[in-house]
């Protein structure tokens, strides 16, 4: 029979992931203002860099990373998630970041293999 053992060292750590994502945001958008031509490149880069950093950890997880960048205009933005998964092993974290001209919301979902 197959026994799945829960190893705390290789489980998803939301706090560690939050720090990683914040560093990625600062790295890519720390010194720029909202620019319609560049925003496509930024969102892709944030997703790809975050995914690379997560995969590097070598944990037995699949990941989904979503990134939304919105210009600061006084408009509202809300995100909500609902997941059907293994609540013991799987997890998510949402990281909000902003600068003078834009908001950035990154959601990471980690699903155990």
């Amino acid at each position, binding site marked *: 029979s*197959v026994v*799945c053992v829960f190893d705390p060292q290789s489980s998803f750590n939301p706090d560690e992931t939050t720090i990683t994502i914040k560093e990625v945001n600062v790295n890519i958008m720390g010194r720029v203002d*909202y620019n*319609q031509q560049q*925003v*496509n490149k*930024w*969102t*892709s880069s*944030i*997703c*790809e860099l*975050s*995914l690379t950093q*997560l*995969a590097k950890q070598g944990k037995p997880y*699949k*990941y*989904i*990373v*979503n*990134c*939304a*960048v*919105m*210009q*600061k*205009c*006084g*408009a*509202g*933005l*809300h*995100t*909500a*998630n*609902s*997941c*059907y*998964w*293994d*609540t013991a*092993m*799987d997890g*998510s974290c949402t990281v909000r970041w902003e600068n003078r001209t834009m908001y950035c919301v990154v*959601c990471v*979902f980690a*699903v*155990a*293999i």
Partner: protein
Amino acid sequence: MEGQDTGGNTYHLRPNYQHKFKPVIVKACIREILREQLSGVQYEPEEVPALSRALAESIKNKLKDAGFERYKFVVQVVIGEQRGEGVKMASRCFWDADTDSYAEDLFMNVSSFYSFSGCLRSGPNEPHA
């Protein structure tokens, strides 16, 4: 491999063709929920948090009944107010491209835009809400 006669292990590592996630079906499910719940609705800052949570739950519950065995689901709903601001969303995934996939839909009306995605992956343990 099937293990029917020996009574041995019948554990399937990968879904076969009929049981794979089908984005077209999921997109249709999402679209139906959007039409039902968002037609004629205006952006109200006090109500939007509850609305987005309710939408995510409805979509997840609908997917649970859609018949995808051994799949886990991740549903994200984004609701934004239309004020002429620029918005860009992107997502990337690190998964098994053979078994896992996603579906998304966008609903827009005069006051707001709504974006939905349901992502799927297969796993050995029984998922639960």
